[in-house]
């Protein structure tokens, strides 16, 4: 599931004008690790300019978010269950590791939460 999915991030984020505006002071590259697969996501002034799949020889990134594939899968489901519904919920359960320069991650936390949640299918209302 993960290969095409993460690449969708670029179009989905860039299509959301309000999200890009909130990220207008954000320029960075961060790493997403889904199980054993790594991705580098580069952002310039709130727009995602590239999503690149690893493996990498000498990757540079400001911070990394690493979780097992099954945890990301639950996070990216249409109706995530309690404990899988938010990045902070994953961190609280110690299944998502955030490491590196977390200042950029925390100062723009809403941007990163909402960007990564873009990979969820539309919520199914019972």
């Amino acid at each position, binding site marked *: 599931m993960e290969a095409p999915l993460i690449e969708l991030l670029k179009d989905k984020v860039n299509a959301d004008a309000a999200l890009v505006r909130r990220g207008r002071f954000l320029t960075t590259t961060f790493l997403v690790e889904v199980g054993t697969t790594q991705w580098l996501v580069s952002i310039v002034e709130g727009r995602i300019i590239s999503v690149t799949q690893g493996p990498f020889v000498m990757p540079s990134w400001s911070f990394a978010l690493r979780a097992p594939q099954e945890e990301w899968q639950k996070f990216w489901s249409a109706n995530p269950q309690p*404990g899988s519904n938010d990045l902070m919920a994953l*961190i609280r359960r110690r299944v998502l590791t955030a490491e590196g320069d977390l200042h950029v991650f925390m*100062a723009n936390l*809403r941007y990163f939460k909402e960007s990564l949640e873009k990979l969820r299918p539309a919520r199914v209302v019972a």
Partner: protein
Amino acid sequence: MSASFEPVIGRYINLDLFGRAHRIYVEEAGQGTPLLCLHTAGSDTRQYRGLMNHSAITEGHRVIAFDMPWHGKSSPPAGWHEEEYQLTSAHYTTMILDIMTALDLEQPIVMGCSIGGRIALHLALDHPERFRAIIGLQAGAHVDPYYDLNFLHRPDVHGGEMAGAIVSGLVGPDAPVKERWETLWHYMQGGPGVFKGDLYFYKVDGDIRDRVGRIDTKRCPLFLLSGEYDYSCTPEETLAVAASIPGCEVTIMKGLGHFPMSENPESFVGHLMPVLDKIRALAVPR
């Protein structure tokens, strides 16, 4: 143009708390059994706007809430600009009891959420005679920090944006958009370091794990209600507290998160009314 007033009335009360002068904002609506409501960390009385505007609640209850010092429209005490704000169990308990006295509240029901749910457990243990019943929302005995709290208060991170983003996932998925973002707005409006100072009580000073089992529900009935999607105080943690206290009643609220009364008032009232009905049925002069 249509305009309408809500039945909510707000006033300021001046009183000494912990030996210092304070100006505290109090609001209320309804008539009947006093129901004193305690807001969460880093927020204010507006979290109870849904209850204060809900006739099913206000027909039989005088719903009262105050902004804690440093929060909402209550001021920090003079001299605050040289201090680091840190909420302690002792100060939290004192402010609740002293404000009750100042308002002439005789054995109210007290209902608190999150830090308010935690202090509700302290009150159940240490001051049961002061209350008709105690309701803890999102109440657990302890929470370990799961992120670096320093991010909540430093000059290179916007405190309001940070607080709102930290708690956004604690709102349940079914919350109406309007109420979700109203709830987060309150967090975004908190003063510098205030949310962090409240969490000192929540994550350090207010730990009640070693005493919570001594709560005697025969001295004061205790009800715990927790939202299914809360990962700060999880349903499992509330259930564990309830299991350690004989006579404690517990409700897990499906679809709701950490701010039930604010994120989804209509759904929350559906869970609260049976509890208030039970308290009414229990009400015999003690």
